[in-house]
């Protein structure tokens, strides 16, 4: 796999992890009502 592609993939994964963390903190409780 080209280095650039691997780098981009890792960046995307870390972004997704951040998004998931944020959802866990702020978005999760919104589904309770």
């Amino acid at each position, binding site marked *: 796999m080209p280095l650039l592609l691997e*780098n981009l993939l*890792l960046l995307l994964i*870390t*972004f997704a992890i*951040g998004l*998931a963390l*944020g959802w866990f903190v*702020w978005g999760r409780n919104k*589904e309770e009502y």
Partner: protein
Amino acid sequence: MITLITANWLLYLIALLIGVVTAFWVWAANDREASARDNFITEDDLLKNAGEPVQPEEPKTEQAPPPVVKPEPKAPPAPAPVAVAPAPAPKPRVKPAAPKKEDVPAPAGKPAIPAAVGEPDNLRLIKGVGPKLNTLLISLGVTRFDQIANWKEAEITEVDKYLDTFSGRITRDAWIDQAKFLAKDDIAGFEKKYGKL
């Protein structure tokens, strides 16, 4: 891969932060709008119903600045009101409203409101009504948009008593207005004002 991570760890950290900030912007921003509206309503209610608890706080903030400028004897007591006054000021405005909702338990039975006539609608289309509220509303005999759309102040107060922790949602989330659009099947009008269904 590990060498790639160690070489660009800062880049990944930034990507992680961007992810968190995006999530905050998407989910927490809506909450802040809602709570801001909620605070506005409670402040408004307090001003209407009991102006006395709010008024004593205002002189405190007005009195606070002069002692800071004035001579030494009055300087020591000044920092305390300055530090204490702003902190409790916003809290009591919200706090009195919360215990009211929680102290009064939802009464048993059904609210005295006009019954729904016809096929039940999907109340979850109303923004702010989730699965829990939907079940609660159905158990209270609220099943149709036109039923909600015709509610007046009396019905809102009556139903609100039964909403328990969701008390205040009818006005805060503008159920009546939303239900008016949905009862008329005016999806375009609804989406224009409240976003995609």
